């Protein structure tokens, strides 16, 4: 149990996907302009990460390892993730139209989001079991959502602030992220 808790905390704040692993930067800078978008995107990414971690770790532990073809994991993972995103999108559209309207446009983007493939590859590298993979995906998803929400709060203020012309937009967002990453470095003392 304490093992699972430590995986969760490490993935959520210490090795935060965005600020220390640099994964999922495109949605981080692209979607973090409004708070409501940030929450929807975070929820969509967490959902896809959970489902794809479950299926890829089942495939890894019960197919790739027994047949000694671990090196095939890149091709198999990307295909699994791409098809899962399609299935999730179709299911949500059929069952819950309100949720689809909130998440819909972000789902296709997630296929090529390095955060999802990244977390499944991290699970395989660390040799996590199925339960451990699920916990690490949940932690990573929550950490991602947390940072996205913090960033969108700051950027709503930045939009109206008066900063030098050449710093506006992406450059100042990067420098804000640098300060956030500096703050998150403090968490590394926790373990």
């Amino acid at each position, binding site marked *: 149990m304490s093992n699972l808790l430590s995986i969760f905390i490490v993935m959520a704040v210490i090795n935060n996907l965005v600020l220390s692993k640099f994964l999922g*930067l495109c949605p981080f800078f692209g979607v973090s302009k409004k708070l409501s978008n940030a929450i929807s995107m975070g929820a969509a990414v967490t959902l896809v990460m959970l489902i794809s971690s479950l299926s890829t770790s089942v495939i890894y532990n019960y197919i790739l390892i027994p047949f000694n073809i671990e090196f095939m994991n890149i091709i198999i993972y990307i295909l699994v993730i791409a098809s899962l995103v399609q299935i999730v999108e179709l299911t949500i559209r059929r069952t819950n139209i309100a949720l689809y309207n909130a998440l819909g446009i972000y789902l296709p983007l997630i296929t090529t989001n390095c955060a999802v493939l990244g977390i499944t590859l991290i699970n395989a590298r660390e040799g996590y079991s199925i339960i451990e993979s699920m916990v690490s995906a949940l932690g990573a998803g929550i950490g991602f959502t947390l940072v996205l929400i913090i960033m969108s709060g700051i950027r709503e203020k930045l939009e109206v602030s008066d900063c030098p012309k050449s710093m506006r937009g992406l450059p100042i967002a*990067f420098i804000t992220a640098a300060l956030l990453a500096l703050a998150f470095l403090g968490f590394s003392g926790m373990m």
Partner: protein
Amino acid sequence: MQNEKNGNRFLKEFVKGIIISNPVFILALGLCPTLAVTSSLDNAIGMSAGVIFVLLCSNIIISSMRKIIPETVRIPVFIVVIATFVTILSLVFQAYFPPLYESLGIYLALIVVNCIILGRAEAFASKKSVLLSISDALGAGIGFTLALIIISLLREMLGTGSLSVFGSILFKLPVLFENPMVIFILPPGAFLVIGLLLALFRWLGVVKNE
């Protein structure tokens, strides 16, 4: 005459990728590996070599198959082609450059989802001839390399006070070597250096403001 014209077109596609539409600084594509592997010059060189290899091979294969690939399933086909070359690359690195393989970690495998490669496949290789696609791949690849080397030079010099290429130290900076600014090789330094470089390029007028 015809040859000269063709030569100019190849040169145009090549230069376009390096400067006018530099994938990192101007289009802000492929940021994840850019930030992650630029903590040392070695990693930046290894990563660039990998990206150029995958970009070149996948552009060649995709543009030579462009007439056979059905329109509706083109993206999955592109992804499988790219993933195949990334698998080859990661096996080669594992066999011949184990230290580099270890330090690049998951970012080597993540070349699959690098937007630069899928972007070039979709926007260029799936429509143009093989030779043009080769020059486009080389241009975008060298543009990416250039960006990675600039960023990693700055980060390694400020963060360690010296510069080394594959184990041999090139030079040491006088004061910085005793008191390096370690923050630059930690994650916050990556965001800071790229943010300041983007601002610098806008200030110089190389990049237009949005």
